[in-house]
């Protein structure tokens, strides 16, 4: 049986964060499409960005890929595919360290750039700063996991954290698995949950605009004035507040 604290941290908190994440994105997309942007500062400064940004982003793509494999694919499947535990761990540690280092170096460059380049710092909102703290925490604890779980100690997250994570989506949470995980893993999960709750309200929403469609779409899009013009059906929330009329 799990304690109350475990239930709060590893069941209630994840579901609450997930709800904020999903509803928040719906709300943001519905009411703030105009604010849905990368908010690039490249026009102010290119030299540091040219290194920092690709390192961070490509590193992040690899990290996300690693998490998909580590968290979503049950251990039995990789074993059935003929990958030994040792093989898996060498791969995970190797790629994890490379990607993690790229992300950490990239993020350091980007944060330095944010702080040191005057115009970039001036364009940094309070939400941005909060987001950077969240990102840094998640990345630091994440790298600590790679070291603690694989190099110093031996914690097989695929028999703990991963099962807990998948259980959440099958409405079958196992908080005791998280309760038994090393503290760095617990910290990483909590930091990530906070970041996910913050996500819809930051510029991180641009992650969900990955323009894959660009690879196939026709080069020159045409749009008709007719269909576009009538598209705005309702009024914005605050517009209705003024005269008290209801949204059609």
């Amino acid at each position, binding site marked *: 049986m799990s304690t109350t604290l475990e239930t709060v941290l590893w069941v209630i908190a994840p579901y609450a964060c997930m709800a904020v994440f999903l509803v928040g994105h719906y709300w943001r997309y519905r009411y703030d*499409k*105009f604010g*849905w*942007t*990368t*908010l*690039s*500062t*490249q*026009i*102010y*400064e*290119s030299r540091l*960005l*040219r290194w920092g*940004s*690709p390192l*961070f*982003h*490509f590193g992040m793509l690899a990290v996300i890929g690693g998490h998909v494999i580590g968290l979503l694919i049950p251990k039995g499947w990789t074993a059935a595919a003929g990958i030994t535990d040792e093989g898996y761990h060498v791969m995970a540690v190797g790629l994890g360290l490379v990607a993690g280092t790229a992300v950490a170096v990239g993020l350091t460059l980007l944060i330095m750039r944010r702080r040191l380049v*005057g*115009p970039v710092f*001036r*364009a940094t909102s309070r939400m941005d700063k909060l987001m950077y703290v969240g990102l840094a925490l998640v990345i630091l604890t994440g790298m600590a996991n790679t070291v603690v779980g694989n190099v110093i100690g031996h914690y097989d997250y695929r028999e703990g954290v991963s099962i807990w994570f998948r259980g959440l989506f099958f409405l079958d949470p196992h908080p005791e698995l998280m309760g038994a995980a090393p503290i760095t893993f617990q910290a990483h999960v909590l930091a990530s949950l906070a970041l996910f709750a913050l996500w819809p309200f930051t*510029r991180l929403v*641009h992650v969900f*605009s990955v*323009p*894959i*469609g*660009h*690879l196939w*779409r026709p*080069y*020159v*899009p*045409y*749009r*008709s*004035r*007719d269909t576009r*013009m*009538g598209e705005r*059906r309702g009024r914005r929330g605050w517009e209705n507040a003024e005269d008290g*009329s*209801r949204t*059609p």
Partner: protein
Amino acid sequence: MRVMAQMAMVMNLDKCIGCHTCSVTCKQTWTNRAGMEYVWFNNVETRPGQGYPRTYEDQERWKGGWTRESNGRLALRSGSRLKNLATIFANPALPGIDDYYEPWTYDYRTLTDAPLQEHTPVARPKSLISGRDMAIRWSANWDDNLAGGPELAKDDPVLRKVSDKVELEFEQSFMFYLPRICEHCLNPSCAAACPAGAIYKRSEDGIVLVDQDGCRGWRKCVTACPYKKIYFNHRTGKAEKCTFCYPRVELGMPTVCAETCVGRLRYLGLVLYDVDAVLPAASVEDEHELLDAQRRLVLDPDDPEVVRAAEKEGIPRDWIEAAQRSPIYSLINEYRVALPLHPEYRTMPMVWYIPPLSPIVDAVSETGEDAENRDNLFAAIESLRIPIGYLAGLFTAGDTGPVTDSLRRLAAMRSYMRDINLGRGTDEEIPRAVGMDGESVYEMYRLLALAKYEDRYVVPPAHAEQAHSLEASATGCSLDAEGGPGMGGPSTGGPATGGKVSLPMPRIRRPQEAE
């Protein structure tokens, strides 16, 4: 043949006095906002000069427009779709704010708030980017009127192409102004490069717009536009561009830049073009063939076959008539004096220019010869290698033939009309020498020299049946939506309760009598 309509503009450069009224009124109307301080949807460049942003025409560096690959297909100079996505995290060819200029304001408050002191207080320039005191080193028009001299002008990419070793002797230098807006291209590379697909051409009038809700700030359009006429709003993180003043154009009014042009040098109108022919025209191998390919795209609106095809595509009758009355087709294809800006970018730009004869006229009159004499002018057009080469570098991918033809026609008009103005008999030999007749020279003179308001601007209002859906005149009932209570027929007896209240929109008419 699939006919579409396109709003287009022609600018008669001879008449531009470089007063920047178009730039200022455009800025006041559209870009007078935070994040847009450095943005000039309309700017006027002195040529030779570096342009705005600096050296934007150097496509080796800025990677704008299209290139033709060896297999005959067009590719963005900035790279394939895959490369476009791979470089999305840091754009390798994005102009920085210094390539435009650091916008500033002045600390006016110190003028009134400074304590009593020995010296008069001054308003210091404050950067609108960093917020700090700054030294002003560049602006959108730093090299206005050749300011900065040969040191700045030598970096003009067009001039560098004309001659590897140009000694810009100041006493011999020529100069003219080049007002620029978005070209509203038929083959827009900005739209092609947009990862989010947020840039589109309006199918009704060809105006190229950025969907502000769809733009995600990937900045690829800024690089891909060879004219650098897409700007990044650094406050909102969205791309913005000249809208051809579509809210005005929909009501039949000319754009702000055209309406306020002091020299009355802008012409606005619809042209009909064959959308299926655009890509083949933009892909012709020889760069010197591009001009003619582009001219052929602009269809003759009086050709019955074109009219039939336009009707088949649902272009309203009054729009076809507007295309027939439009000055654009005749300037491009009848008088053949208007040329596109940098056809070699293969974007099929739809803002055309009548090259300036005045540098040639000036050169002739400086020699003490008669600058309205046909033979003197023709001879000068042949002999002034650098100005002609420069104009060709701007308008014809370096082919001096069409520039010479255009200038000869303008020169012929000048000499022919002088005889009429002096009450002498006309010399029909003059128009014949440039392949025209007296009547068409006179018509061209009416269009270019008298330039009546109603001849310059033929802007058909957006069509009446569609008027209810226009942004500027919301007259539809919101209850008429599918499944709504007001679905079906038009409402009678006033607006339905609970729905949107529609205000009567005053009909704005283009002034008919205005000159």
